[in-house]
């Protein structure tokens, strides 16, 4: 009965166009009534308790780093370096997009920030070189979703806070799978461009490569600092986020000199507003999460899924299919905040490593960013590359299939995730 109340209240509130944060609060009110423990103080305590968290402080700072990275010219220099290195090979611009996406992922942790930068920079170049515009936009969109997988990742922070897991462990566990997604995309791109008639770029000279490397060195320093600092316990994820933000501000204003004070103010306001939307949602979700725990909703779900509890791979497959479906209709943050409190106890009861589950869950949610109708990254790439949505959807499909194949391999062979995670987390 409690499951029914939870799902009905949530879906009904969302269906009438209510913000998801308020839908979750309504859900909380409905659960309080159902559990005969109606007290407005539960709302107040959990809303404040949900935001009064040092761990969540990482979110605004990683967002700030991402916005500064785009506005301050860090993205541009990363792309220029990738161009100098692999721009001359057949389909080189595609590999540039994938390499740049992997590096930018280690700077911002936001798929949208990466998509905005890469879409505006690379899609026009790819079309000019003779690549199909749908395919070019599709690759850029697909490559951008590596953003939330390779650390730092806002998605991992939200998942870690909601599921009460180590964010540093999640970060370290995300590196190898993120790179595997990149390799999967590169293979798909290679298969597609073999027969394309495209204009090859001239090979960059040694001097040009050196110049590109020198110019991007400051931008490349950031992921090194973050990953090194987290691995060796020099700072917490929150402190890593602050270091990332300060570093990117200093590089953008003092070294690259592409960010004025007025632009910096706008970036601060924008980051604060996006943060408040996301964290208000987190706080609202924690109201429901607290009541879900009280009502033992995970226990009821475990009972429902009892036929699958003895087969972890089958359970993972079923959950991943559910997440793919939800991901087509809902953005990443609400999906994490609604499903994680219910699903993490279920996978733990089935003996699945929650860190491994977290990585696959976030990869799946990331793929959701390029699935219509609510493909956030699709909207961004369509917007910045001046293409219509249908074109981008057509182009993204083969790459989405490649990503799902990689995800399938990770479900079939958990060692692909757990071994590198154990090695990096040592």
């Amino acid at each position: 009965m409690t499951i029914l109340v939870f799902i009905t209240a949530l879906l009904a509130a969302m269906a009438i166009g209510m913000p998801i944060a308020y839908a979750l609060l309504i859900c909380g009110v409905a659960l309080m009534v159902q559990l005969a423990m109606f007290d407005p103080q539960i709302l107040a305590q959990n809303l404040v308790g949900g935001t009064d968290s040092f761990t969540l402080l990482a979110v605004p700072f990683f967002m700030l780093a991402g916005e500064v990275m785009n506005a301050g010219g860090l993205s541009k220099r990363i792309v220029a370096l990738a161009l100098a290195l692999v721009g001359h090979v057949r389909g080189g611009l595609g590999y540039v997009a994938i390499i740049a996406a992997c590096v930018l992922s280690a700077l911002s942790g936001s798929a949208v920030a990466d998509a905005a930068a890469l879409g505006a920079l690379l899609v026009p170049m790819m079309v000019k070189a003779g690549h199909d515009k749908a395919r070019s936009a599709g690759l850029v969109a697909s490559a951008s979703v590596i953003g939330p997988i390779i650390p730092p990742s806002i998605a991992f922070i939200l998942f870690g806070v909601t599921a009460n897991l180590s964010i540093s462990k999640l970060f370290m566990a995300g590196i190898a799978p993120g790179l595997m997604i990149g390799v999967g995309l590169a293979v798909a791109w290679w298969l597609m461009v073999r027969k394309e008639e495209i204009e090859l770029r001239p090979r960059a000279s040694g001097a040009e490569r050196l110049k590109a490397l020198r110019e991007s060195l400051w931008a490349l320093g950031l992921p090194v600092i973050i990953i090194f600092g987290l691995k060796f316990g020099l700072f917490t994820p929150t402190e890593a986020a602050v270091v990332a933000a300060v570093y990117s501000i200093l590089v953008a204003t003092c070294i690259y000199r592409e960010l004025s004070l007025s632009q910096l103010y706008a970036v601060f306001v924008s980051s604060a507003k996006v943060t408040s939307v996301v964290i208000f949602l987190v706080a609202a979700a924690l109201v429901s999460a607290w009541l879900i725990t009280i009502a033992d909703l995970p226990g009821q779900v475990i009972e429902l899924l009892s036929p699958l509890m003895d087969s972890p791979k089958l359970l993972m497959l079923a959950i991943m299919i559910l997440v793919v479906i939800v991901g087509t209709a809902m953005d990443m943050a609400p999906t994490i905040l609604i499903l994680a409190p219910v699903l993490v106890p279920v996978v733990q009861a089935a003996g699945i490593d929650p860190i491994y589950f977290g990585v696959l869950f976030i990869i799946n949610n990331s793929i959701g960013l390029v699935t219509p109708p609510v493909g956030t990254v699709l909207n961004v790439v369509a917007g910045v590359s001046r293409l219509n949505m249908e074109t981008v959807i057509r182009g993204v499909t083969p790459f989405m299939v490649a990503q799902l194949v990689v995800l399938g391999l990770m479900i079939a062979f958990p060692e692909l995730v757990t071994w590198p995670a154990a090695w990096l987390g040592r």
Partner: protein
Amino acid sequence: MIAIRKFLLNPVQFLLAACLAAMLVLVFGNVVLRYAFNTGISVSEELSRLLFVWVVFLGAAVTLFEQAHLGVDTLVRRLSRKGRLACFVLSNLLMLYTTWLIFSGTWQQFGINLGMTTPVMGISQAWFFVPVLIFTGFAAAWFCLSLIRSLTGRISDEELIGVRESEEDFDIAQLPPGSAPLR
């Protein structure tokens, strides 16, 4: 709405940026002091958390006025104006009721925490609940305004969809300066 933005939202936005900058200085200062001088800012974590609570709830109020909160508009977009209006009124009434519940719960918590002090700064714990009270004031005002405008027919079809599908709905006009295509 222009007057609201000028006299109410712009100062709040300035406050948001200032709080974020202060949090940045506090936490970064703490990291630097820890490694460079083996010391730290004792109030850093506590004050950062307090400022963060303020940023979240003041920002949530501002973004309500900008209709920037996350939601799913797939169903509502398919309805006629009458259908949209009915959903809009119903959702605003429900949100107004929820806002009242948040206010009453927070007011009680404010009273309970008034005499309690934070471990490091020694200020009243009630300060953590003040931004929620401010938020409920803003939110209630916005929902009432929305209801009045919708019931008097002074609201556009687009405004009847009060949410965004993503927290980063993208506006080409706001493209960052570093995003010009490379040649």
